[in-house]
């Protein structure tokens, strides 16, 4: 498991991630440094030419023209070489970055697939997607751009200072002191008393305004319907300006610090001039020193850009840390454990033995749907129906069978084997599901059905579609089975989608079926067809069905009535309606609901 190594954070974690393609990055870094060195060559050329000119200042006719031209071309070669090498460095870093990203994204997709469903249920899918993309982008930014830029800037600074120190220690030292003076002043002015707090406060405030924007946009339809757009707009507007004022105020705090920093960084020359002059004025005829002095005058202002870049890049990594730590937060979620000694189910009875279950994140929900001490057996080849008020635990029971979550206590067995001991793949092959909220892939209808059994022949797919009452409507679509679903393709009605997902399950033909009866009333024709499709699907299977319409389960072999996470009653329909209990109350309610009709003349029973 990746997450059980000692978890690194921040920069070292980033380098750890980047380290996956170490070779490429090292090459990129070396190239970037060489490029930095090359890009300094033009300065050298200028220096050499100045030297030639200074030597012959008194007698211009002695100036060696070819020598100067020679150095002019060297400057050009340095430039071309520097840029070509820079290009190579960028390519290496990007290849590394995008490979790493690919690895991260696949890794996360795999990991999320192994997590309990709760992970996605607690966080809106959109947020997960957005975070994944943004956070991964930040890693890209770091690996592909920040690392080479940092290396480049660092290499430039290092090479420059090596030269500076070789030429004149005092002036070199002065530049360094000036730099630290600038940074020091900036730090003390910006991070006085409330130091780090402000940065966090800034991100918090940004997050708040984001939440407010999402709420506003999402709420617009409702707000419009209630004719309260002005009110809602005003609130959002206030939020916006509050954020602006906050941000401006925040920036104002940085103003002096930033200005001082910029000024000092732009004034390196000012600092070295007196230092050099002190030496020079002692010995005005010293041409060697005069040359060094000139060199500093030309080069020193050039040191501020890479230094500035370096500090900016270094401080900009904070945002990248954010991204990495969020990705790590996903990685650190515990996946559902695979069986250590896998067993195969012997038979298709499903048995719940004293199962208790609680959803995590209790703090976030107002109520926690849970199961306590549930025991029952769904016999092979029989229909077991789960009924009860919403929130009673029906869906939870169904979700535990495929291990979308793991039980907190007790055991669930299929064919006598604890489902935790069955390999996930095997378990999924044993059980099929028809969920209430159907999900179709952005793909052809044919592929959408074939998901049920990737090895199925075309004929088998068509047969499943026929059995699920889909064949007819699919044939009527312009591209038949090759019609694309969703974005850019065709949108099916709810009933049609449901039948396609039934066709999928028919094709899968697993011995156990968990069925969540659709609750939404499709139009009558759709509903009729759906029922034919379901009849076909449940033939000879062990069925666990969450029933909403009590009339449909009159013939179930076993009805389990759940309330507040406990089994309230069990039996068959004929027994349960006889007893004075929850089932009978529901049955009566169901019948009156069925007889209900709209009436504007007042409330009728």
């Amino acid at each position, binding site marked *: 498991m990746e997450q059980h190594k000692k978890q690194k954070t921040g920069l070292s974690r980033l380098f750890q991630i980047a380290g996956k393609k170490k070779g490429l990055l090292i090459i990129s870094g070396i190239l970037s440094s060489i490029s930095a060195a090359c890009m300094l060559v033009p300065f050298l050329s200028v220096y050499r030419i100045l030297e030639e000119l200074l030597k012959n200042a008194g007698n211009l006719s002695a100036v060696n023209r070819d020598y100067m031209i020679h150095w002019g071309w060297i400057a050009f070669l340095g430039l071309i070489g520097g840029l070509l090498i820079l290009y190579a460095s960028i390519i290496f870093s990007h290849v590394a970055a995008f490979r790493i990203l690919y690895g991260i994204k696949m890794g996360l997709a795999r990991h999320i697939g192994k997590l309990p469903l709760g992970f996605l249920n607690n966080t809106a899918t959109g947020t997960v997607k957005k975070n994944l993309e943004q956070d991964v982008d930040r890693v890209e930014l770091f690996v592909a751009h920040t690392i080479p830029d940092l290396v480049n800037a660092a290499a430039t600074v290092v090479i420059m200072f090596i030269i500076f120190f070789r030429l004149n220690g005092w002036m070199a030292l002065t530049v360094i002191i000036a730099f630290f003076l600038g940074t020091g002043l900036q730090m003390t002015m910006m991070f006085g008393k409330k130091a780090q707090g402000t940065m966090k406060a800034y991100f918090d405030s940004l997050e708040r305004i984001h939440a407010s924007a999402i709420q506003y946009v999402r709420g617009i339809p409702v707000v419009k319907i209630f004719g309260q757009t002005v009110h809602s707009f005003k609130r959002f507007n206030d939020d916006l300006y509050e954020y602006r004022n906050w941000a401006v105020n925040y920036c104002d705090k940085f103003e002096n610090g930033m200005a001082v920093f910029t000024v000092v960084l732009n004034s390196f020359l000012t600092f070295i*001039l007196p230092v050099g002059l002190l030496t020079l004025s002692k010995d005005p005829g010293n041409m060697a020193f005069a040359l060094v002095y000139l060199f500093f005058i030309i080069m020193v202002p050039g040191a501020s850009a890479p230094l500035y870049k370096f500090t900016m890049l270094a401080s900009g990594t904070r945002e990248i840390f954010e991204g990495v730590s969020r990705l790590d937060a996903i990685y650190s979620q515990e996946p559902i454990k695979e069986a250590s000694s896998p067993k195969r189910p012997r038979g298709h009875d499903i048995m719940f033995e004293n199962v208790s279950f609680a959803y995590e994140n209790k703090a976030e929900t107002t109520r926690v749907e849970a199961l306590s001490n549930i025991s029952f057996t769904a016999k092979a080849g029989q229909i077991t129906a789960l009924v009860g008020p919403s929130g009673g635990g029906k869906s939870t029971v169904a979700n535990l069978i*495929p291990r979308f979550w793991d039980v907190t206590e007790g055991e669930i067995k299929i064919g006598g084997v604890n489902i935790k001991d069955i390999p996930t793949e095997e378990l999924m092959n044993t059980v099929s599901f028809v969920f209430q909220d159907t999900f179709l892939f952005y793909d052809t209808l044919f592929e959408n059905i074939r998901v*049920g059994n990737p090895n199925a022949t075309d004929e088998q797919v068509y047969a499943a579609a026929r059995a699920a009452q889909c064949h007819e409507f699919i044939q009527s679509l312009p591209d038949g089975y090759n019609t694309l679903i969703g974005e850019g393709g065709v949108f099916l009605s709810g009933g049609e989608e449901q039948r396609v997902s039934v066709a999928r399950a028919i094709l899968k033909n697993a011995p156990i079926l968990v069925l969540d009866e659709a609750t939404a009333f499709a139009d009558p024709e759709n509903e009729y067809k759906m029922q034919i499709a379901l009849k076909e699907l449940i033939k000879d299977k062990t069925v666990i069905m969450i029933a909403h319409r009590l009339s449909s389960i009159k013939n179930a072999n076993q009805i389990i009535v759940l309330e507040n996470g406990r089994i309230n009653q069990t039996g068959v329909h004929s027994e349960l309606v006889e007893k004075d209990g929850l089932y009978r109350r529901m049955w009566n309610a169901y019948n009156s609901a069925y007889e*209900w009709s709209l009436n504007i003349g007042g409330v009728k029973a």
Partner: protein
Amino acid sequence: MKIFRNITVGQPGKLIKPIGFTLLSNIVNVIPFMLSIETVRIIFDSFAYPEKGLDTVRLWIIIGTLFAYMIIMFFAEKPAYRHSYRDAYDISASGRANLAEHLRKLPLGYITSRDPGDLANMMMGDFTLVETGVSHIVPQLFGALVMPVLAFVSLLFINWQMSLAMFIALPAAIVILWLNTKVNKRMADRQMKSKLDAGNRLQEYLLGIRVMKAYNMIGEKFERLEASFRKQMKESIRFEALSGPVLLLTITLIRAGLTLMILTGSYLLIGGELDLLTFVMFLVIGSRVYDPLSSALMKFAELRYDERAGERILNLMNEPEMGGTNFPKGGTDIVFQNVSFGYGEKDVLHNVSLAMKQGTMTALVGPSGSGKSTVLKLCARFYDPGSGKVTFGGVDEASMDPERLMQKISMVFQDVYLFQDTIGNNIRFGKENASQEEVIAAARKACCYDFIMKLPKGFDTMVGEGGCTLSGGEKQRISIARAMLKNAPVILLDEATASLDPENEVEVQKAIGELIAGRTVIVIAHRLKTIKNADHIIVMDAGRVSEEGTFETLIEKSGLFKKLWTIQSQSVGWEI
């Protein structure tokens, strides 16, 4: 110019101050540079004319001036910084507010057809790009140009050949860059497409995670996800590999000016057309002038990228708002006169004429896709009809103030949106300033009171984002309570009530019964039994009215309604 319009979301004037003050600060920074040239000149002088010696006094004066000048630089830097940030935040805040204002005036149909995540991202993410554009990129782009431009112009007077040599390749670089932005855009689109595609696959994967698990398609086994990630990787590398050389070429062209200048200088110097000190000056300037030029180039490339965010926002701002100033007179008759309407090119409604009378219940029935929900949406002016008109109480809806119209209509639809707020406030949304008693009364009538009181904090319980911690039936009842409080004379009802568990359903039914009593009701019915008391039933088929009448008359006709009724009677008796 368009680029500045885009990056400021239509307020290019806002750039004047940030640019102005950055220019000022950069101009101020030119003085030290000039003094450094003067220093070099003095040193050279001392060697060219050894008899005069080194003018140390002058040099000390220069040094003193430079130190004193740092204060001026500081005061020039401050407003540049201040305006860049402040004006950027101003543009964002007022821009976001304008967008929000615009959004609320767009047709409901448009809003509901767009992904709210996209809109929110535009509101936040794109404006953040705009912010950076205004606060950093544009001012710095202009600032970086100050020194090169001043150098070019003043050097022209000193020695035009040298000055030209220095900058001669610049126009070529600009042309290449300009041509490149077009090619680049196409490549960027390709890369963007692969990125979007990968995003969509990821979303598909996450949304369908249960199916993925159930059908053993985790990770690589969902091949299209893997393929899209791989494609994105390849496209991205390709993009970087192809777009890099052009930028580097332009930088080469610009910086090659140094070599050109040295060559020219060498010849001119020997030919006696250039004196030593001028050449030295050119050399010093030449070693400094190209850094800002190439950084301006980089800024320009960044600007082209950020500009698109502004363009996206402007496009949305150009969506036509829904206008109208009339207000509903007295009546609530809703009449369709020869209405045709389509969402795209294809019409969904063909020349439909209907009348839904005040104080009656009209039911819309028909197979899915027949146009019944479109009729309901047109009643509430989600859209304006393509041709024909919809009148409300005799007034053309297209001429009405949408908000005033909405005050007359309540809608109870299947997907309920609750705000991240307390339950009480969610109900109070139906009527501003409703008293606690009114809220409670509405809750009671909508059969919510009991379950609300069971919640930990009763009416003050917070509802999660999207209202996810309540069951479907509970949310629905809250939305009914909200409508109850609103007390509008017309109710639009989509009976596609996800049927809940029977007890819940009875409650919802009771709530609806309370809500519609004595009002004008238009309902989309799925269970035909529900509407046997409707005053008027309109049967839709393929965008046209196929039959109209009361329950009894339609059953006798043995048309589409009769057929639907028969099918339904069979399926409700369904047993497994």
